Each structure stands twice: as C-alpha cells, then as structure tokens.
C-alpha cells in the first residue's frame, strides 16, 4: 500500500464550530465509500485558519502524502486553486469553482427558488434569511438568488450574516424577532443555526409554525430530532460526497472530468412551516 493513495481534504474552521461535524462527516463518508472501492482513502485535516490550510497543501505536495485534493467552501477571490496548481496537486472543487477546475456543483439558485416558492405559496410576504459567512461563494449565490426571486413574488426579503453556529442562529433570530416589524418566516443556511433559532423563538413565547415559520438547510439528524421537526431543503449530503468521489476517481484515471451537479433541492415539509399569522393576505 502506497502512502500516496489518499485524497486530501482540509477543513478550516474555528474549534468552537465542532457542530459542523454532522454535515462534513456525512459528506466525507460519501466520498470514502466510493474511494474505498478503489483502494483509496480520504485524509482529513482540520485546521484553525486559511493560512494553515495552504501550509497543509504545501506539506502534502512535498511529502507526496496526497494524490489529489477535494477543495471545500470555495470563497470569492479564493487563493487556494492557484496554490494547488503551482504545487501540481489535482483538485476537485465541491461547489462553485474558480475558472475551469473540475467541480461538483450544487444548484443553489434553483434551490433558493424552491424555498421561496414554498414560503410564498403559504402566503409569507416578509422573509428573512440567516446566511453562512458571506466570504463563501455559495452564500453570495444564494443571497443574489433570494433577492432576485423575492421581488417578482412581492416578497420583502432581508439577509443577516451568521457563521453556521447554533449561537449565531439564536442571536440573529432574536434580533429579527425583537424588531418592530419581524418577518413571518426565516430561512437558515444550515441545520445548526435553525436549531438555535427554533430555541429562541420558543423562549420569546412564539409557537412555531403558528406564529413563525422556519426553514433549514442541510437535512441532517438534527432537523429530524428537533421538536417540532424542522422543514428543510433536501440536499442529500452523502450523495454529494459520492459525486465528488466520482470526479476524483475520473481525474486520477486521467479521464476528462465533466462538471457534475447535485440534484436541485426540494423542500421537505415537516413541522416548522405554515401560513403566516392572519393567513393568506
């Protein structure tokens, strides 16, 4: 067994965001399952900041510890693809690529449209979204898609920027709800922030979904175990990982790697979305 039979994946995140684990562990297990069939593994490295991530790529290239890299959380003006090119490390981007790097894309525009259509169909006209960090490309794509979809539907939309943590979901939800004219529905960019928001709504004496509708992203166990169960967007994280592995394997075989897309997400209606108070206007 060669030491270079690993595919590297670096996760740069603050240690307190440990709760990010369910999403990434499921994503990685999807990648691993496909790679294992071909005798390959995922080398996961968790670092505190972007500089440490780039240092890891340099080390892996030098020591020949990774034969390819899966790049996650692409950002605007991302410095990483250029570094990987310089190092000669083949890369598959999970998300929106910079230039023509092989990528597995999520249809964020189509998914946001589905989310807005669901809430608009219930009669919501004031929608807020608590997003992930706005350095991330997919955060910006979703924001643009939300604003584009809201106007024609007669919806007033605001976006607050969170950091994916349960705490930021709770704090920003509280800020929205204490406002003089709060939204009747809130969309969250992940599961943890939605769980934080659900807790805060309860503490403020609101009954979900009678008084307030909540829609989470990243359908994880957390969404099914909350009370009431969170309505979510349907991204199958495991399948996302398998698609990424497919591109990695093609890349390593020297085959042309076409851009792959995750299926457009649909709304899984559970127990946290309903018509707004006062019903359809």
């Amino acid at each position, binding site marked *: 067994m060669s030491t270079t039979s690993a595919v590297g994946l670096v996760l740069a995140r603050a240690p307190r965001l440990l709760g990010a684990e369910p999403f990434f562990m499921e994503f990685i297990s999807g990648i691993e399952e496909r790679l294992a069939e071909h005798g390959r593994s995922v080398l996961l490295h*968790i670092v505190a900041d972007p500089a440490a991530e780039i240092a890891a790529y340099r080390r892996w290239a030098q020591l020949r510890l990774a034969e390819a890299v899966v790049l996650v959380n692409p950002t605007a003006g991302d410095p990483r693809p250029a570094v990987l090119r310089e190092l000669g490390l083949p890369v598959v981007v999970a998300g929106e690529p910079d230039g023509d790097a092989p990528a597995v894309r999520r249809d964020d525009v189509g998914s946001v449209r589905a989310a807005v259509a669901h809430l608009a169909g219930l009669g919501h006209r004031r929608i807020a979204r608590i997003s992930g960090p706005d350095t991330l490309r997919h955060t910006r794509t979703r924001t643009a898609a939300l604003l584009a979809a809201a106007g024609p539907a007669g919806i007033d939309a605001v976006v607050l920027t969170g950091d994916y943590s349960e705490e930021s979901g709770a704090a920003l939800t509280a800020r929205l709800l204490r406002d003089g004219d709060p939204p009747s529905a809130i969309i969250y960019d992940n599961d943890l922030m939605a769980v934080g928001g659900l807790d805060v709504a309860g503490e403020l004496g609101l009954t979900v979904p009678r008084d307030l509708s909540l829609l989470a992203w990243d359908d994880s166990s957390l969404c099914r*175990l909350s009370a009431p169960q969170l309505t979510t967007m349907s991204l199958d994280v495991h399948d996302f990982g398998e698609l990424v592995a497919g591109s990695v394997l093609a890349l390593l075989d020297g085959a042309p790697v076409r851009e792959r897309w995750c299926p457009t997400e649909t709304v899984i209606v559970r127990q946290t979305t309903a018509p707004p108070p006062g019903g359809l206007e």
Partner: protein
Amino acid sequence: MLDAIRAAGTISRVGLISVTGFTAPTISNLVRKLIDEGLVVETGHAESTGGKRRVLLRLNHTSRYAVGVCLGQGVMTYVLTDLTGVVVARISRPGVGAEAPATVVTRIAAEIPTLVDSVGVDRARLVGVGLVFPGPLTGRGVAGLNPELRHWREFPLGAALEQATDLPVVLDNDATAAALGEHWAGGFGTASAAAALYMGSGLGAGLVIDGITYRGPSGNAGELGHVCVDADGPRCWCGARGCVEAVAGPAAVVAAGRADAGLAGALGLTTGTGPAAVARDFAAIGRAARRGQRRSLALCERSARYVAAAARTLANVMDLEVIVLTGPGFAVAGSVYLPVLRQELHTVFSRSAHAVDVRLSRSAATASAVGAAALVLESELVPFHRGLRVSESLDGEFAPLPGSAR
C-alpha cells in the same frame, strides 16, 4: 490536575484548589511543573471580584498529540488529536480482514508516522497510541471472542505494537473508548452515571461512572449486545440465546433486508458476508429509513424497539442519567433509533427520581478512534485514571471464552 484544567477549559490556581482539594503549595508546585513541561500556559486574567486578579490557566493544545486507532475487520480508522482530545487529522484504511495479526501491526506502525507527518507535527510530541477493537479485552490483547477475529486470540497485540512504534500503547474495546471520548467532549454533561451505546458491526456499551470509565475486572462490563431480550430467541454467536445483537443487531437488520428481494434490489444490498459488507448494507438501509422509505424504516424501528428494551435494562441496573448513541451505525441511523429509545426510557424504574436523557453523539462516526486517543492521553498524563497499559499488564490472564465452551 491536567484533567481538571481540561474539563474547565480555563481555570485559576484558586479554582484548582477547590476542584482538586489539594493545598495551595501543592497546586503551586504542580502548576509550575506543568508550565515548565509546556503542557499548560497562562492565559489572561479572570474577572476581578475585588482583591487581586487571578491568572487563568489552560492546556497548551499543541504541546502534545495522541493517535487513536479503531481496528475493525472492514475498516481501520486513525485519528490524531491534540492534548485536549480535539481531532486534528483522520484517515480510514482497509480493515484487517483475514490478514495475519503481525502484518496488521506492521501496517499500523507504518500508517502512524504518515498521519503525523501529514499534519506537520513533530513526532516527539506524540504521547502514545490508543488502540481499540470490537470485543472484550484481556490483559494481552484481543480476546478473539468474535468469530472473525478468532485468529487474534493468542496474539500479544499491545506489546507487538509498542515494539513496532516505540510508543506507549493502550488497549480497550471500542464501546468503552467511545464512552471516554464522549466524556471528554462533554457529551454526558454533569451526569454521574452515563453510558455510550455503541453500534458498529455489533452492539455494545461503555459506562462512565463518576467521571471514570467502568470496565469491570476483565474489560467485559457493558456488553449490551449480549443482554437477553428473548429467552426463547435465536442462538447468538456468543453461545447464549436471545441476545439483542442476535435478535436485532445490525447483522440481523441486514439479514432481514437482504431476505426482502424488492428492498435488496432497490437499495443494492449485497450478499457479501463479513462485517464490512454488513456495515455497508446497514448504512444503506439506515439512510433509506431516514428518507422515510417504508420497509427500511420498519426494519430499523423493529430493531430499535429491542435495542431500547436492552437500554432500559442497562439504565435500570446502573441508574443511568444519560445515554448517548454513538458509533458508525448510529451515525447513520441514530435519528431513527433515538425517538424509539426516548419513548422506552420514559418507563425507566428511576423515573420518579430523575429522567434518563437520551442523545445522539455529535461525533458518532469517529467516536471510538477519538476515544482511543483520549484513552492514551488519560493514561499517560492523568495517572490516576489509568486504563490497561500494555507494559504493566503483560501477565494479565485471558478472560474465559464462552464461545469456546459451546
């Protein structure tokens, strides 16, 4: 001492006196020693409550590292953690399959430096290797109770790995390690009696009583998979009848799924034997159940009712306050099992005194490898809580093997 600082995050010397019960001069000396060794650093001041401000101490995360290895038949998982038990790197490699134990030891010894180098950590900062495996523990190594691991029975796994890696090695079973990892991560809260229910290729439990893992005299405490849930049930591989693992464990769920031709076709279930194939098919059934696929959901919920009955038995025997579901099986299907277990635990005998809180671990997929690393950190740095250090238990006797008395 280190354990007290780790558990607190940051703490002052005065705080340490009240937590440990040591005298002020003792604390002062111990803290100086830890700072000299680089294990502990001073980090700012506590809020002043009048009088002089107190200097806060915390662990120096990157001063030491530990390797945790979960040895499985289908897959081997390696993690590297820092001094606080937080994962820095992780990799999975093919499992031991039918390989000879000595070959596997050579392989592990080669993988560890690769993992350490991938993170750029100086190998001198490694405190040791925690190695865990499914099944009970003996002084020397794997008991080999599990049918597929029978050829490991007489193999001195720990001693061989210590020799091959030139590092201290600590052994334990996967469920106990997962429980320790959960304790380190704070998953049990303030409970004085807690258990981690571990679903891998089988079913087990690790117990943490008053903050310490309870192993029993032979490391066999918490063998939840062999709690009887049906006195007339099928014969288990352990030789007994009606064990929950035989009635409703992952292999039983997979067997039922494979027997349903429609389901087997839809989910692409295999006919492969061995734990790797069982784990893959169980994951497929678990994911389908999560999506609400009716037949898969029914299979998992049936299994969950039996697991819940066994969990209630354990809670009644140990007066448990918290149960955490963990391991690769629950990482996939935990959200299906959890509501069933919560419901069942409402009927626990102790309910008038306290409820039993049932939760899903936040690191279910890698719990036992993370726990293995915690095990070696604890054993090397917190001597009072010592697990089974290989070098000190070489004359340990093998536990009786019920499987061989069949």
